[in-house]
């Protein structure tokens, strides 16, 4: 980390100081509000992605938000939260590139406020609630620096009526393996064929490493989730996804998998327009132009062939109660 912007109000917090101590050579820049830097005009996401700065901030309000309809894994009350904005990985389909002006990482250091809001929201509902982490970031990728998930799990261990999904592509699982698994937590990995990982999911762990992390987590007793999301069209998609399912399921205890979901490739039109300006050489974006209801998606026929094919293949490996059709982040 070369440059760290710090909101004046959080400078003295021990969490801030701990994070700062990890980067002794970084420049420190004090700011009033993180939005002054993060939302400023005249930024280039692609250029910043080269050496993103870190922004340490306080999240005021809106910490726990209801998920869009259809975003659930069987629960009735569903919410998401983001202790971070942006991601160390660089997936070409990622909606964050179109949503934010800046590729700098924002870490909200007032973790306890998140946990209070989660507890309050849980108490409001009579049935159990689900909280999804990893909507505006990868939940685990910066865990060695933030230790958010570690603190989060401590809190969820005391709130059995609240369930947590940790969505990730990261293999930073040392802390998870060093503690007992929680019954109210699912570690969900986004998975794509290795060919897609190499071509489109830049800087992410390989498919093999993700499968190996899943296996270790499962062996340790954690509930695991598989998110085949987004499903990308390709002339050879049948081969790609058949191979992917084969590779994944042969390594895991299938009956103990908590949930499996498929996510179609979708992007809001405005995000897509920005992304194609940033990455005009991207094959993935160049091949995708079908707009439906202000969303970029594949044409209906392509999308349903992809989904139907994958659903049918999944039936060879899992039972219907493990399957949730669309848990899409974008």
């Amino acid at each position: 980390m070369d440059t760290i912007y710090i909101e004046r109000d959080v400078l003295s917090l021990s969490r801030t100081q701990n994070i700062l101590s990890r980067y002794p050579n970084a420049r420190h820049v004090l700011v009033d509000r993180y939005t002054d830097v993060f939302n400023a005009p005249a930024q280039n996401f692609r250029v910043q992605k080269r050496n993103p700065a870190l922004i340490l901030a306080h999240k005021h309000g809106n910490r726990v938000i209801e998920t869009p309809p259809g975003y659930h894994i069987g629960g009735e009350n569903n919410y998401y939260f983001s202790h971070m904005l942006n991601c160390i990985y660089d997936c070409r389909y990622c909606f964050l590139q179109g949503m934010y002006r800046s590729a700098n990482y924002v870490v909200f250091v007032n973790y306890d406020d998140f946990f209070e809001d989660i507890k309050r929201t849980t108490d409001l509902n009579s049935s159990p609630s689900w909280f999804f982490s990893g909507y505006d970031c990868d939940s685990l990728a910066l865990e060695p620096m933030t230790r958010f998930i570690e603190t989060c799990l401590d809190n969820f261990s005391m709130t059995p009526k609240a369930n947590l999904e940790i969505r990730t592509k990261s293999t930073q699982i040392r802390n998870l393996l060093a503690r007992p698994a929680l019954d109210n937590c699912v570690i969900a990995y986004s998975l794509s064929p290795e060919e897609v990982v190499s071509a489109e999911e830049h800087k992410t762990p390989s498919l093999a490493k993700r499968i190996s992390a899943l296996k270790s987590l499962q062996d340790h007793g954690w509930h695991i989730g598989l998110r085949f999301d987004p499903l990308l069209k390709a002339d050879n998609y049948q081969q790609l996804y058949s191979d992917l399912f084969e590779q994944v399921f042969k390594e895991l205890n299938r009956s103990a998998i908590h949930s499996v979901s498929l996510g179609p490739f979708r992007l809001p039109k405005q995000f897509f327009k920005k992304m194609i300006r940033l990455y005009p050489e991207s094959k993935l974006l160049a091949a995708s132009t079908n707009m439906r209801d202000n969303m970029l998606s594949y044409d209906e026929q392509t999308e349903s062939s992809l989904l139907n094919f994958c659903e049918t293949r999944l039936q060879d490996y899992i039972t219907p109660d493990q399957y949730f059709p669309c848990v899409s982040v974008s």
Partner: protein
Amino acid sequence: MPSICLITALPAEARPLITYFGMRAIGHSHLRLHQGESAYLLQCGVGKLNAAARTAAMLQSLPDVVAIINVGIAGSDRTLGETLLAHGVQDQASAQQWFPHLPAVNRLPDVASIQVCTVDKPSSNYTQELAFDMEASGIFNAASKVLDLAFVHCVKVVSDNAESTLDTITAKSASASIKEAIPTVEKLMHALPFDALPSTSAVEALSHALTNRVHYTATERHSLKQLLHRYNALFNEVPNAQALEKYNNAKDIRKMLLSKIDSAAVTY
């Protein structure tokens, strides 16, 4: 290296840069401009209004300029002659601020960064955290309308502090200060992240050739560029210019490009 423009306020600040970069004057009706092999130099005059107006005029007049570095002297409670890189620029009067996206620390390892505060009148309220100048906010205001802030920077050399106040500055001392900053300026020029930008030259050239030959409305021109980019992404090359010669109107060219794009194979 793509074109960079160095901007100074005073002739005394400009002189060492002109000499070092081997620049010569370019005749311009109302701008003081110099050009060398690796950069242009604009001498914008004193104050943020001059700085903003002349930066905007320069950017219009030299559309190939894709980066700007403001180089100048500033007051701060730091060691005289210390070279500093702005991590933020604030206009004191309006409180508006800009945050240039700085290169990696290892590209400029010995250069400290500071908040530059642009004042309307010279200030002697020296602190360690601020460097006072009179132009940076004007330059950032104008440049940020056109350029991304990874390509707009500000290098200041401490010319006055509590022990050696403003009235001690001479043209000679200002030139000497800027001379000290030249290695930093040069490193910064080389650290600008031009290579992170997509290469668009092949598409630009073909689009230019086509719009010269065939009539295109502004909207059609925009969509032509998009199609050429998509074609380029899918086939790893732009369409063959000769093969396009048989098409004599924008509609036919569009139809042909779309049909190729739609039939492009996408495999992983």
